[in-house]
């Protein structure tokens, strides 16, 4: 399950901390300390993911993403940056990167996002015509937007359905609150309250009430996970 990840980061301490953390997750991390080496390595299609600091000495990390995309390298890119304003984040996403994480970040947030990107890379080109998602006893009909658990239909509001679909596509992996906010609501700001938690606990009540095994789990200090089995 180990994957090859390229980390382009000029700050040695941050780089060491990320390399160690991703290594503990079973990934192999190559590290480039400046933009030139980074750009050279990033054009190698052998990487499953590029994690990129936006502010490199003498170079905007976004330029590397643009160069990769221009050269037809499809490797997913996660930008790490201290440039934290909404517009800077949207600019990063518009610039061809797949995700944007603001420094300082919680490591659990980085892991969750890395895993989501790796999963998405797996699915790319594959089951685009997928019509059904199955997570353990849960069955989601993507065309009819109908959810069943052990044959019993679960009535969901549209937003609850989107929430469940995103969790189900990342089944077995931790999904953070900000990821949900960005992916399900398309809001890129932090509301700072537990607004997401309340939505999830509502969904959990509909999903798990009356069943023995809880499917929608809270992962302390990180986020939520829809049990894979």
């Amino acid at each position, binding site marked *: 399950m180990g994957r090859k990840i390229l980390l382009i980061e000029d700050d040695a301490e941050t780089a060491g901390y990320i390399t160690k953390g991703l290594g503990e997750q079973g990934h192999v991390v190559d590290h480039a300390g400046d933009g030139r080496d980074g750009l050279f390595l990033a054009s190698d299609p052998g990487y499953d993911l590029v994690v990129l600091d936006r502010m490199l000495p003498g170079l905007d990390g976004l330029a590397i993403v643009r160069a990769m995309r221009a050269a037809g390298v499809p490797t997913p890119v996660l930008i790490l940056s201290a440039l934290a304003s*909404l517009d800077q984040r949207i600019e990063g996403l518009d610039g061809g990167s797949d995700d944007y994480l603001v420094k300082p970040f919680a490591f659990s947030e980085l892991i969750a996002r890395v895993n989501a990107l790796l999963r998405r890379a797996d699915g790319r080109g594959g089951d685009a015509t997928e019509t059904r998602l199955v997570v353990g006893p849960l069955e989601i009909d993507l065309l009819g937007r109908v959810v069943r658990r052990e044959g019993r239909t679960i009535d969901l509001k549209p937003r609850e359905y989107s929430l469940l679909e995103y969790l189900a596509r990342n089944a077995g992996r931790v999904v953070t609150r900000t990821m949900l906010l960005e992916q399900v*609501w398309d809001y890129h*700001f932090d*509301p700072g309250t537990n607004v997401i938690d309340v939505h999830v606990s509502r969904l959990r009540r509909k999903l798990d009430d009356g069943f023995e095994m809880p499917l929608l789990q809270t992962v302390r200090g990180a986020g939520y996970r829809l049990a894979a089995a």
Partner: protein
Amino acid sequence: MARLPTTARIAALSILLALLSNLALIGFIHFRTHDDALGALRQRVSEQADVLADLHASGGRWALADAINHALRDDSTLIVALVDGEGRVVAGNLVETRLADFHSSGFQTGELRTRHGTRPKESGFVVRTFPGGDMLVSGRSFDERLTLQRTLERSLFVALALSLLLGVACGLLIARYVGQRVGAIVDAVDEIGEGDLSRRAPVLGGGSDAFDRLSARINRMMDRIAALMDELRVITDSLAHDLRSPVGRLRSRIERALATEDDALRDQLLAGVLEEADALTRMLTTVIEISRSEAMAGRQRFARIDPAALVGELAEMYEPLAEEAGVRLQVDVASPQAIMGHRQLLAQAMSNLVDNALLHGASGGCVTLSTAPAGPGMVRLGVSDRGPGIAPADHAEALRRFGRLDSSRSAPGAGLGLALASAVAHLHGGRLELDDARPGLVANILLPLDTRPAAS
């Protein structure tokens, strides 16, 4: 060429203009009144002198004297005198005391007195001298028209001189006045430049003339700069001040975590450290967002937005949270029109207002999200609660960055929510208003409508 000072150039220009316009006027009058009467007189007098001189040459002194006496009998404008070498008038009607001053000359004009006339008359004449010492003064007095014309021309010349004088005086006066007015403004700006931001440019006449308008503009600019400087100072002070408490909490938790032997307590303390660090990051992000909005960054991301849809989305997002807090969340959408806006920032601003309403107004049991037309070309996005509200006197403090009312000091938050909403409203060319909802607080974001023709 060295450039003259501006005031001197203004003076020179006004003098030149006065001179030119007077010259044009005088030239016009001269052109319309002048015919060459003087030229005709000159020719007649010259010919007459030639004839008389010929007579003297051919017939001598006495032949000429006879001819003169003869001619004077039936010619009233003729002025003539034959003078001998001792200055005695031999013949003619000229009565002149300064005959000794007369020298041979071509045509000239001057006042000559005749034997019959009561006063000297304006005349044109020629003086000839003959070998042997005789001198002939031969001329004619001006007729009335020529006299009038001469008077007019003289008056015009005087007028021209006067106008030049007046022009110079006016020019100097204008230059002095302009110089004084500009000087006063320059003095004020200089003092401001040296650091006295409270100094203002003088406004003299109720703001009606150009200098007053310039002063008023400078003053308005200075008011804005002073307000911004104040705000900046408050922000820096408050940022430094507001960072102290979370950093202090961080520090004490880390200290206790290092000191404790109890693993469970250490975990709990470290979790608190994380939370505190996250809150700090959030606060800094919001500060950045506020200053970017105030610097008008992000307008290039404006897109057409339906305010009703935005309000609907937020209501849907906050409905579960409200329910948990025991608050009924209502939506009131009236005839919405599209606006041009930044969806993310507007949503964040509105979410801050809803957060505030749920935090401070939950006791009222009801929070309403609404959108409605608000006067010509404006739309209102409002959040109202039925809680205790904010006293009107405290509204300004509530809107201020890091402004926190004593009543809410204990509640979480950095006091940036309303400041962000206000900055976002400004970014959109609108404003944030707080009002009494009787009971409760209503916060309205007023935004200009999209005035472009409907997109296809």
